[in-house]
């Protein structure tokens, strides 16, 4: 018998979607999780979601019931969904912060954060996707997973990386102490099992993790990846550039129907770093109030960005609007993209002034696909440089890491509770095992051999 799968969730927004973001929940509990979070516009719980019909409503926190956002709910029963499982999509106003909060609520209500490519994997296993498509997606995951692990540690450079490493070492030592007491009860060198004493050192570990989580969460709540904002006035070619850029990096999957909404494809992977592209296009299409709101929003996105791609049309003279945007940018975080190189240039970059001379720039024609490799390399360098120089925790303790830390903390606290309640050591060890495997999401798996290594180097075992 094949056991039922668990229910997964992730932000599944296609890149460049501007104001709309989607959180997708897939698996047997998708509907029940959704119903725990769904409310009508006036704040009453939604009792049901009609299949295949868009329903307007609110999404709220699973604990406090406070509304997070106005959203559209869409329930797709199996097998007629992308994954072939029961699926609920929450279409929200976008903005990574609010999407992050929605996802957090979904996870708190019982879903698990999807692995990269997991929606696609399920789609494939449920016969919803052909093999070529699935292979392409899996190949991409495989190619990036190694780099991602490397970069993940890269991201955690500085104090944070050390703290995570110390945390892992402390957990392994606590586990080793438990295991030594269990497996070597007759060794003189192994102190008899002392649950209360061990609970004290585990308390310290617990405090450390809490501090880590608090620090990370206050810096940047639930935001994943390098935020890269595409800026520029209308008609400079933002959209075609964006499509070019995404097509370039995701040539394998881009043309596959249905794959563009999966979590791995919804952003760029550069050197294994997740780059979330935030397109400010479309925000200024209307006049009046909406336009003002759009400009304000663009400004906020630019301010919160890790990188800004400023697109300028080199075939037309610089406008006042171009100058205004330029003046508002932090040059340390900006890349200049001089578009429309297929047409005659009407100005020289020197006109931007000396202060822009050192800012990385690329000359391209998005329309004719000229210079895109060069642009890609410039972005890549900037992304890596950004990852390397970022303050600890400031750049990213991404959502996956944060969830891993929270699970670790829960397990560590259960372990401590087991010890304080005088439960036997193998029960506490079982909780500690869960803690280590949760932390393993960040640091890689801890094998029994690593624990044995610590035992044999710390204790004289020899009966």
């Amino acid at each position, binding site marked *: 018998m094949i056991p039922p799968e*668990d229910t997964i969730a992730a932000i599944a927004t296609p890149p460049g979607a501007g104001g709309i973001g989607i959180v997708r929940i897939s698996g047997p509990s998708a509907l029940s999780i959704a119903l725990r979070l769904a409310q009508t516009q006036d704040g009453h719980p939604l009792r049901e979601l009609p299949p295949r019909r868009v329903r307007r409503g609110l999404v709220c926190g699973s604990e406090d019931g406070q509304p997070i956002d106005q959203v559209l709910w869409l329930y797709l029963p199996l097998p007629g969904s992308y994954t072939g499982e029961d699926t609920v999509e929450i279409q929200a106003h976008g903005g990574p912060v609010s999407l992050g909060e929605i996802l957090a609520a979904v996870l708190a209500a019982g879903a698990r954060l999807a692995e990269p490519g997991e929606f696609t994997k399920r789609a494939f296993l449920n016969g919803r996707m052909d093999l070529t498509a699935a*292979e392409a997606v899996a190949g991409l995951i*495989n190619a990036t997973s190694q780099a991602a692990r490397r970069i993940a540690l890269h991201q955690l450079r500085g104090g944070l990386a050390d703290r995570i490493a110390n945390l892992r070492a402390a957990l392994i030592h606590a586990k080793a102490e438990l295991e030594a007491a269990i*497996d070597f009860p007759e060794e003189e060198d192994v102190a008899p099992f002392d649950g209360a004493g061990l609970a004290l050192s585990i308390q310290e570990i617990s405090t450390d993790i809490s501090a880590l989580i608090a620090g990370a969460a206050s810096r940047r709540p639930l935001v994943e990846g390098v935020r890269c904002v595409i800026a520029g006035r209308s008609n400079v070619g933002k959209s075609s550039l964006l499509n070019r850029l995404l097509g370039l990096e995701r040539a394998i999957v881009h043309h596959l129907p249905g794959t563009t909404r999966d979590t791995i494809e919804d952003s760029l992977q550069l050197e294994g770093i997740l780059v979330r592209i935030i397109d400010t296009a479309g925000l200024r299409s209307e006049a009046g109030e909406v336009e003002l709101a759009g400009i304000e929003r663009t400004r906020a996105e630019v301010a919160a960005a890790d990188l800004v791609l400023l697109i300028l049309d080199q075939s037309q003279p610089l406008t006042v609007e171009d100058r205004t945007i330029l003046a508002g940018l932090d040059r340390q975080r900006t890349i200049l993209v001089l578009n429309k190189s297929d047409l005659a240039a009407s100005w020289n970059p020197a006109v931007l002034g000396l202060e822009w001379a050192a800012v990385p720039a690329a000359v391209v024609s998005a329309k004719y696909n000229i210079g895109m490799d060069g642009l890609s390399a410039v972005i890549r360098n900037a992304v890596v440089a950004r990852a390397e120089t970022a303050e600890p925790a400031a750049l990213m303790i991404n959502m996956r890491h944060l969830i891993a830390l929270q699970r670790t903390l829960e397990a560590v606290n259960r372990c401590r509770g087991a010890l304080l309640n005088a439960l036997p050591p*193998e029960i506490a060890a079982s909780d500690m095992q869960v803690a280590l495997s949760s932390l393993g999401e960040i640091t890689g798996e801890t094998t*029994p051999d690593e624990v044995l290594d610590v035992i044999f180097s710390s204790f004289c075992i*020899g009966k």
Partner: protein
Amino acid sequence: MAQRYDLIVVGAGHAGCEAAFAGARMGLRTLLLTLHLDHIAQMSCNPAIGGLGKSHLVADVDALGGQMGTVADATAIQFRVLNRKKGAAVQALRVQSDRAEYILAMRRALEQQDRLFICQDMAREVLADGRTVAGVRGQWGDEYLAPAVVLASGTFMNGLIHVGLLSFPAGRAGDFPATGISESLAALGLRLGRLKTGTPPRLDGRTIDFSRLERQDGDEDHPYFSWRSPRLRIEQVPCHVTYTNAQTHAVIRAGLDRSPLYGGQIKGVGPRYCPSIETKVLRFSDRDRHQVFLEPEGRRTVEYYANGISTSLPADVQQAMVHSIEGLEEAQIIRPAYAVEYDFIFPDQLRPTLECKEINGLFLSGQIIGTSGYEEAAALGLVAGINAALQIRGEPPLVLPRSESYIGVMIDDLVTKGVDEPYRMFTSRAEYRLLLRCDNALRRLSGYGKRIGLLSAQDAEQIDAKLGRVDDELARLSRLRISPSPAAQAQLAAMGQAPLTGAISALELLRRPGIAYCQALALAQEAPREFLPEDLLQIETEIRYEGYLKREAEMVARTQKLEQALIPDNFDYALVAGLSTESRQRLEQVRPRTLGQAGRIPGIPSAAVTLIMIALKRRANHG
């Protein structure tokens, strides 16, 4: 004239005996070859069976229908329960055995087994017909032919004993080494390596001053390894404990110039968990003493095993070292300590059935595949014998999952990760430790034993009845109600327990720490039933730790899909798009049997497993 059998087992140690019993009991005409008929099932090292992880293996062997548990129970001279104050999952029985009686009992059982023939000869060569085993050639040139061979030659292959700077070929002190067979295996294409192990001196008990030593008695209230064993209470024999001291350590340091271990003569890798005394003194130089357990070798001998001072130092240093220890000032060494180096076969060349991937019908088991310990050997021998028999009967193999047995954990570790020191079982190696208990071994494994025919119909009936009594009692406990009557509250208060807030079942009450089965029944005003200790332990454990057991069971369920997804033998990893060269090479070497196993190969990322899964599906779709 060649002799023909269905199965030939080479070596009659703990692995070989189990393999031979399994083969013969499953219907094969089985030949068991031994170098020395009087040394069958010899305990080359300490005269004890069981302990943490090891008693779990014996329970597994017993539940499948193996022999070790019954013989160990019948020849024990001391029973001890380790971790008695901890939970059921990590409680372990260890017995001190009467070494000579163990040999006799095992030989008697072998001789009474139908279809089993024993012969004293040394296998010098494995015979193969292409990539298929054909039999073995004995030392006088005789050919023994069979479609399956289980090799279980222990530490004997090119065994080399070291005592100080002297070394001589031997499988064990006093026994010939097995020569020729390593070369024949290498010629068949197998990779061999070299390991080392050691053993301490044996002392004459008449020259030990026990009066000054700490005495260690057995436990009166103890379980047995086997469900079959009669629950007799025997008169137990004590062990004693003494300690090395500063003078001992000085003697050892002074003798290091003649240590083959530190002089470079010994090339094989020894186990970290069982270091020689010289290694302990050097590596843990801050410790001013080390324990020495004096274990009796039997009821009718004065020989004592000095557990804790294994060494390869020269005989005169051994003598001085022993004499420096309290209580051993006058002790006579009956047999000197020594180290032995031997050939082993890297176990990643085996399938989880213990058959060589490259040579059909050749099964390897015991210490020759890099393990250490009698219990590990017996478990491997049993599985090798079972799978040889299943193969000859044309039935699907027996591969035990990690989630169901310590045997499954051990074999999966060996064939997936290989070894870099002799492998010994520890309970920490089992990720589902709470589920793999001695008390529920029959529940976990007797179904397999029945199916393959190692447990008879009569055995099965008895086992089912035993398991049924536990199930019935669990059901009864959930039905029995305890109401918060003044009498019940008073009884609880007297036990230091919180009062009841409402009526609860006896089962719910048993979830409270500190409430025992009899107490719960007294509160329910019902009579307790009689249970064997392991069954009572099972009842209390299933109730008390239900939440934890459930969590592990859920973890098992989550991995089932991968664990059950078989990768065909002839699967071509070169056709898997996107695999890194490194991953491909590792996969081609290990040739995992399932996707789950593939994911446990060191260095294989989970994305690679997904790629293989997709390639398998493609294969299935394209026929």
